[in-house]
């Protein structure tokens, strides 16, 4: 399959590195990192990633606000978004999906199977 471009929007440096390592080793995809919602929106317009992994709980502009900006922008509205969120919030999965995210991946996730989890959600083949 063609190499996928992933955009991760998460303020946690550890999570950024774990996602980058997991996805590049397991699937060989490119991962661009945005440490905040604002940077994420810019990068999404610029790079047009194949999917955006978006952390829900971030200081400043949180995941929900970031998602709404992405969905209201013609350049980014069709890019699929997957929420990354802690266990307690997984119960809100349905609510999140009504906002326009394709799915929710709960933290902590298994970085070894993260790429295949994304591929499964989006119907990609690894």
């Amino acid at each position, binding site marked *: 399959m063609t190499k996928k471009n992933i955009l991760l929007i998460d303020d*946690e*440096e*550890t*999570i950024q*590195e*774990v996602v980058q*390592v*997991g996805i590049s*080793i*397991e699937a060989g995809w490119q991962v661009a990192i945005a440490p905040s919602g604002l940077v994420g929106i810019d990068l999404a317009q610029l790079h047009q990633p194949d999917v955006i992994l978006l952390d829900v*709980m971030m*200081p400043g502009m949180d995941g929900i606000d970031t998602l709404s900006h992405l969905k209201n922008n013609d350049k980014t509205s069709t890019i699929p978004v997957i929420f990354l969120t*802690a*266990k*307690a919030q*997984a119960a809100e*999965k349905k609510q999140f999906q009504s906002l326009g995210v394709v799915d929710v991946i*709960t*933290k*902590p*996730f*298994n*970085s*070894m*199977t993260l790429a295949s*989890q994304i591929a*499964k959600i989006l119907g990609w083949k690894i």
Partner: protein
Amino acid sequence: MRILLVDDDEALVELLTKTLAQQNYALDVATDGEQGWIYGSTYTYDLIILDWSLPKLDGIQLCQRFRAHDYDTPIILLTSRSGSQNKIRGLDAGADDYICKPFDVEELAARIRALLRRLTCDFLPILHWGDLKLNPCTSEVIYQGQSLFLTAKEYRLLELFLRHSQEVFSVEDIIDRLWSSTEYPAIATVRSHLRRLRQKLKEKGFPDNLITTVRGQGYCLKAFPQDHDVSKDEWCITPNTASVSPEQSNKRSQHITALTSIWSKHQSKREQQLATLAQAIATLDAGNLEISDRLSAIITAHSLAGNLGQFGLDRASELAKEIEQLLQEDFSQDSNQLLLLSHKFASLRQELALKQNIVKQISQKFADNLPLLLIIGEDEQFTEQLSSEAIDREIRTKTISTPEKVKHWLEEKQIRGEQLPHAVVLKVFFAEDAAQSPTKEEYLGLIAEFKLLTPSIPVIVIADRDRFEDRLLVARHGGKFYLTQPVNPHQVITVCQKAAQYSSLDKKIMIVDDDIEFLQTLPTLLKPWGFKLTTLDDPRQFWDVLQAVAPDLLILDIEMPHLSGIELCKVLRTHPYWSKLPVLFLSIHRDDSISTEVFASGVNDLVIKPVLAQQLANRILNRLNLKR
């Protein structure tokens, strides 16, 4: 083992060179038919892989030429031409096997192993010499249950002697067999590899002459003493460890190294986060924590909870999560909350101090091929001891304190489609005076939930007393084993291992049936049980596929064209290795006359079609359990 690959597809050659080298084969590559003939007729190979479409001389012509000159080396033909006519042409030209492009390299590797076994008339997927086992699928060498670490050349030497246990090899023969034509090792180099291999074997307690010198001729494998008891364990099916390919294993080790380095890099940040939390709790205790500081502490705990879980520190992650929730509560109403918060924080520190060996934690987290044991209970000392014993015996563990949390965890696992535990252990108090919270009814309810899962998960109950009525309660709710305290962690884990073996997960089932429609529905029908299914619609390929797959159980249709299930079963029972393999027959006939003939052939069970998935799965599980 030495292989010749004749193929002009550069990408495929590169892929196979890498894959076969990882599996310890020496490989020569020729890129056209004439070159293939020169290599094949000059050097000795254990196996030849030929592409059908080759410049100068095509694969079919080359294959015919080898056979016309009495070369009996096994040949695998690679081709993009599918269809029976092409297969027949390839096999008639003298090829031993035929594989269509694009193919799975793992399948090719399995076929190579199957052909190499046939070459030495050794049908065992694993090579043995007493307690020494060499597994060509995983390149693992084990002696008396312990891994033997060999270099690639030492491994190849040992494999050569085990495969050709009756032959004497000169140093020149060894070079010819184990080094590719582009390498020119000195005789002293070969002897030095041999010496080191002998030394390593000797260190493990082997007789020092496992590989003996035959004066003036070379080396050979010492004959295994004939008076040993072969009937006891010799033919039991060795558990398959081939599920992880070398590529996956390589990725896994890269991944673990990368995560370990991320963990080390953020060590000081974590210490800072713990200091922030300690400061916030102390200030809260003094009653003057500002709202902004409390918010900052909540964010810190949230961040810790997320990060620790990424490195396999599940318990620590859960504690950080609880701290995050407690920090959000109003402490002026309940002074116990503050005590609880301090206690949770102390436990978090202790947990992090205990889990110093992060590589072990990460490896455990990702060892998803290891069985998973769920430990339920609030007695931290007990669960910690159990967990430690389990980890020592290569079992992953997950500890959860209450039935309510277990239900939540299970739900999440099911939503995420993740591996459920192979066994569950929980402590229940039955004595009337035991003021237990959660109550015994809640625990019994939980046992029933595990029983109702498809497939059900065995639950081991550790009870405070031994009474028939309590055992009856547990049995009625579907508990697998009932142990009474006092019981030590070693005994508990041994029972858990026994219970987990009932699990169907990863059991390899091979089904031979000419009804293609039925075969196609089976993977979906049996999916909940986690069997690894191999289906085959042509009984003529039975023997090759059987050896490549090495199933735990075989299902045969009775009536098939060319070869009937009864014939296949009879053939199977003539071989000592397969004589104990559980076999189920599928039949559309209900009459008794057929059952007599069926059972006389050595079959273990007969299932009448049409069959329900649950019914078939139960019959499979019963047979697998009886085999143990």
